[in-house]
């Protein structure tokens, strides 16, 4: 029977949430199309992950080796290529994350299997695989199939599938040997670097006013700061505002910034990229102001305003008084 594999993402001793979203997708492919799901976890000290994973899927494949202690695409791609060639899964899933983006396109070349990245929907269509990707800033969905292949690789956007719950039955765990590596390696892992703590901790504030590229210019930032002050809110932002050094990294909301859960989140001039929205999951009231009625942020917000953000900033200040 055809198989679907989930490549487990873990870092610093913790399995990352995205893996459990992919378990949901693998189960969906099982119930709809009869694919046999399994988790593939490789690394050092990952046996405890396998115990957990066996509560979610009928089968877990483990490759345990000291050489795999820190993720490098070189070693991981070699191990996975070996597994793909022995097990020939029809579909192999991985999160679209710093891990998946580094690994899967390269694994695709090494294992001669086509890969589609950043998919929001994955389903079987006859004997082939069909995926949906969200492109052009979320304004268009594109559907693709693949040139026929013995196996397909897919990375999946976070938040596309709900995280799975435990299955209630115990799955099997297959320990696999680590294949010999073709040393010397061309990449070497040197260590992690934590973000420096900033002057504010936006994750502690119940009320965030957040600005995006719509703020347009550094000299407009004080207008937003002033609004936040008068509202008793803390100023946050999307990534481009930090990239341009208009605000410090500690104020960035999103996958590569901070995850926040305020009671109120007001987004001004932010389009609603998934990397941004992933940072505000589970927030209270979410109000979005954007002059583009088609901005994807309006499918995530509770309340929407299609208007020039500066007009709204001024009107809010006027209403509050000084």
């Amino acid at each position, binding site marked *: 029977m055809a198989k679907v594999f989930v490549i487990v993402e873990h870092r610093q001793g913790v399995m990352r949430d995205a893996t459990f979203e992919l378990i949901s997708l693998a189960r969906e492919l099982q119930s709809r199309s009869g694919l046999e799901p399994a988790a593939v976890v490789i690394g050092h000290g990952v046996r405890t992950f396998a115990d957990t994973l066996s509560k979610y899927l009928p089968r877990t494949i483990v490759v345990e080796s000291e050489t795999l202690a820190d993720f490098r695409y070189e070693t991981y791609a070699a191990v996975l290529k070996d597994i793909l060639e022995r097990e020939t899964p029809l579909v192999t899933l991985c999160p679209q994350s710093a891990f998946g983006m*580094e690994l899967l396109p390269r694994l*695709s070349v090494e294992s001669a299997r086509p890969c589609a990245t950043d998919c929001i929907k994955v389903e079987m269509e006859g004997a082939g695989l069909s995926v949906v990707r969200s492109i052009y800033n979320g304004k268009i969905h*594109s*559907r693709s199939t693949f040139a026929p292949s013995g196996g397909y690789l897919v990375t999946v956007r976070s938040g596309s599938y709900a995280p799975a719950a435990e299955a209630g039955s115990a799955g099997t765990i297959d320990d696999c040997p680590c294949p010999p590596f073709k040393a010397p390696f061309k*990449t070497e892992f040197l260590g992690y670097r934590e973000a420096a703590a900033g002057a504010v901790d936006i994750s502690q504030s119940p009320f965030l006013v957040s600005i995006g590229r719509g703020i347009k210019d550094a000299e407009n930032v004080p207008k937003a700061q002033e609004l936040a002050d008068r509202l*008793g809110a803390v100023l946050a932002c999307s990534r481009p505002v930090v990239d341009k050094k208009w605000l410090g990294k500690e104020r960035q909301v999103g996958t590569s910034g901070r995850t926040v859960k305020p009671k109120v989140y007001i987004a001004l001039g932010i389009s609603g990229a998934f990397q941004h929205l992933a940072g505000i999951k589970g927030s209270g009231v979410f109000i979005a102001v954007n002059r*583009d009625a088609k901005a994807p942020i309006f499918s995530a917000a509770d309340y929407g305003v299609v208007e020039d953000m500066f007009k709204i900033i001024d009107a809010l200040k006027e209403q509050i008084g000084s």
Partner: protein
Amino acid sequence: MEILVCVKKVPDTADAEVVLKQDGTGIKEDDLASGINEWDNYAVEEAIRIKETHGGTVTVATIGSADSEDVLRRCLAMGADNAIMIDDASFKGADPYGIARGLCGVAGKGSYDLVLAGAQAGDDGYAMVGPVLAGYLGWPHATLVTSILLEGKTVTVTRELEGGLEEMLRIELPAVLTIQTGINEPRYVSIMGIRKVRAKEIPVLDPAAIGLAPGEIGANANRIKRTGLAVPPAGKEAEMIKGTPAEIARKILDIVKERGGVA
């Protein structure tokens, strides 16, 4: 250091209406502003900074139509030494594998120590071309790079991970690195600067000139087959607040008070 930077011209769709072509094969780009892919702008800046510190040359290359020439000229004005255009007629509709094949041909014609690409393109955003190109070249790669330190025959880079965390890697040259936004502050390009490079010759290469066989690239050779584009189905939508800015502001304050209890 000989550095090749891969750049792409993309339409700006964040702040514009996106309309599908009648036949559903693409979007209407005529009314959209377009320019260098945001990530590629950072990559070009980074290459020029490396050159300024360590010497060498920077070559920018694009697979695109004549319409992409302005993007290459902009890169020359920033300080790139050479530009190469690969005529895209036979690349029409090529998937990231086809683009990477073409760029592999370009890289093979030089003797580069480093190839830089954007971490992803802002239009269809595969985030694949860099690492696939590295695979074709048989070179090591790192994606989402946020700093580059050159040390002899290696580079030490940081890669962006999630939640503000970064990892440090040492990589042997030659290598392919994909650049994440924010790695530097790209310099400003003046109209004067672009005028100065107006006369610079930009060679246009066809697929044969970069060693590609007919049929090796293009829609028929694709491994990812696009079957259709559509406007996303309406999902959950926000409740829209309408009125004059003053009315909207009053309603926002009411919501903040009632639902959030914070103002």
